[in-house]
């Protein structure tokens, strides 16, 4: 078992933080007429990939999972929330936090950049690794192919975790990837491709850890596909009913609801008598309180403004400030 007993409660709590954040941000944004990109149902895939990495490892989460990625890295709610609420971004010291800064929108683009960070690790004779996330939609991009191919031919310490939820925006995977098989693409590059049940924390951990061990040993990149299901729309709220572009979605969602990633871990915690039902309930209440406090604190922070633009200008040619 690659999840040590004494850390399972902590991992569960991290997954719970992700869940509470996604539920509450969905409620809040919907009530205010804006949107939230939710990771609901992907907690095992995200936390399983990014939990417990070394301080000198670098994470590059998928945009959708970036907020949860920050939590998996051990950063508190207010850091994650400030990023998404237009407050002075607190994830500045990217080298200290080991998080790839999000500066533009295209998912696949981060794959070659992540490969470059991994290249630096190799050239510097270090054994830190880069764990990058992407979705299934990213497989369409040239940068997915170019980045993974480059990492393969240069044997770079990169782990690419593709969270395959079967759809991008309102386009199901059958329409953009004939095989629907992301892990299978790895064989084109001569690297291992592993598909796992993305809702099973332990399966994700096993696959990602194996990939990290390979990468640290200098054996090159691995493509890990976490198979899961998008429990909502592209955003929350989404005006387009998923049933229209994925016939049978509602029925399928119920099947996946029974595979809830938090539910699976709760059952293990209870079976192994590591937690009681009461403790789990209290954990949710505590995390909810933590979220509300952090949200209120971040909301009361001044929004970014003209002085931030001026400061950005100082840094645009480097060595400024």
């Amino acid at each position, binding site marked *: 078992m690659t999840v040590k007993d004494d850390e399972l409660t902590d991992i569960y709590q991290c997954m719970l933080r992700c869940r509470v954040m996604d539920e509450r941000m969905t409620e809040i944004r919907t009530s205010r007429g804006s949107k939230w990109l939710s990771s609901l149902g992907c907690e095992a895939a995200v936390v399983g990939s990014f939990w417990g990495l070394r301080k000198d490892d*670098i994470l590059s989460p998928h945009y959708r999972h970036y907020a949860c990625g920050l939590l998996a890295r051990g950063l508190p709610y207010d850091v994650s929330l400030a990023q998404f609420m237009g407050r002075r*971004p607190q994830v*500045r*010291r*990217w*080298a200290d936090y080991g998080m790839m*800064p999000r*500066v*533009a*929108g*295209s998912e696949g*683009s981060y*794959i*070659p*950049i*992540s*490969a*470059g*960070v*991994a*290249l*630096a*690790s190799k*050239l*510097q004779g270090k054994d830190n690794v880069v764990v990058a996330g992407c979705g299934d939609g990213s497989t369409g991009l*040239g*940068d997915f192919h*170019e*980045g993974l*191919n*480059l990492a393969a*031919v*240069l044997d770079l310490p990169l782990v690419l975790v593709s969270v395959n939820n079967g759809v991008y925006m309102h386009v199901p995977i059958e329409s953009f990837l004939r095989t629907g098989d992301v892990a299978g693409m790895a064989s084109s590059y001569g690297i291992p491709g592993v598909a796992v049940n993305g809702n099973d924390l332990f399966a994700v951990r096993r696959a990602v850890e194996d990939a990290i061990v390979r990468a640290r040993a200098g054996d090159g990149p691995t493509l890990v596909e976490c198979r899961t299901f998008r429990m909502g729309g592209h955003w929350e709220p989404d005006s387009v009913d998923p049933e229209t572009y994925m016939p049978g979605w509602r029925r399928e969602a119920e099947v996946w609801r029974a595979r809830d990633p938090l539910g699976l871990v709760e059952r293990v915690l209870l079976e192994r008598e590591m937690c009681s039902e009461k403790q789990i309930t209290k954990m949710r209440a505590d995390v909810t309180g933590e979220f509300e406090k952090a949200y209120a604190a971040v909301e009361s922070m001044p929004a970014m403004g003209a002085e*931030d633009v001026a*400061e*950005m*200008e*100082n*840094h*645009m*040619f*480097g*060595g*400024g*400030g």
Partner: protein
Amino acid sequence: MAKTVETTFGHALHEALREEMARDGAVFAIGEDMRHSSNEPMAGLVEQFGENRVIDTPIAESSIVGAAIGAAMAGMRPVAEVMYAEFLPMAANQLANYASNFQGRTYGEATVPMVVRTRFGRGAHSHVYDSWFAHLPGWKIVMPSTPHDAKGMLKSAIREDCPVMFFEHMQLYREKGPVPVDDYTVPIGPAEVRREGSDVTVVASGLMVSRSLAAAETLAGEGIDTEVIDLRTLKPWDRDAVARSLGKTGRLVVVHESWTTGGIGGEIVARLMEDADIFSMMRGAPARSAALDVPVFDGLLEHIIPDERRIADAVRGVIKTP
């Protein structure tokens, strides 16, 4: 007077790379056909520095630039090559949306000290996209016209802490010029006055510098005294130097090899004329001489990009304007 050696532009680039790679272990070259290239700048480098310092990639410009960005953020100083400027658009997403964005959006906590070297100006791959990428915040854009500047500015580019695009004109590769024997750099930014004059200011870069100088010789015979300024750096370009010159001449012609519409000539003219003091010094309307807005290919290159005759005509045009 520093001791100099007659060196070709191409060899000067090689010396810059070799010296910077020897000086700083973080400097490495990455691109297509780097190790066994028949091109002068890369010759012998893999033998001297090893495969970890000179990296061959698949034919994949976007990932070459993307990987250089990531490696630069993680403490290396990559010198990426996009073999021909015609291929820069293949990496446009990385160049435009990521390279300098990291620096700005993290308020300098992430820096991207990378150089993208690229060649243009002759044969099947003549296109130059300097103007297009000059539009991007955070990039420095360099186009030397002499071996001295090629070496000195490539060294400076490698030492810069921000992304630098370095344009190498292939028709200049065999041109010889004096290059100091001792270590030196040429700063990125300041322009150089190549020919002093009092009647008109011609602002040029790259191959257009020597063509402007040739035009100036012809014009001298007509009693027109031309000042030729070699920008050397297209971004940030030396506005003060050009303004000082305009204070003398009051007449401006901007010459560049990229397309006229939306080209850097427009940016240069606009930025100068926006200044009321400079505007008031003008004795007539400014002019540009740049590539005609058609696809560039070697068969018609000399009819598309400015030559000595077109540059001289542009000067005569601004001298005539009341």
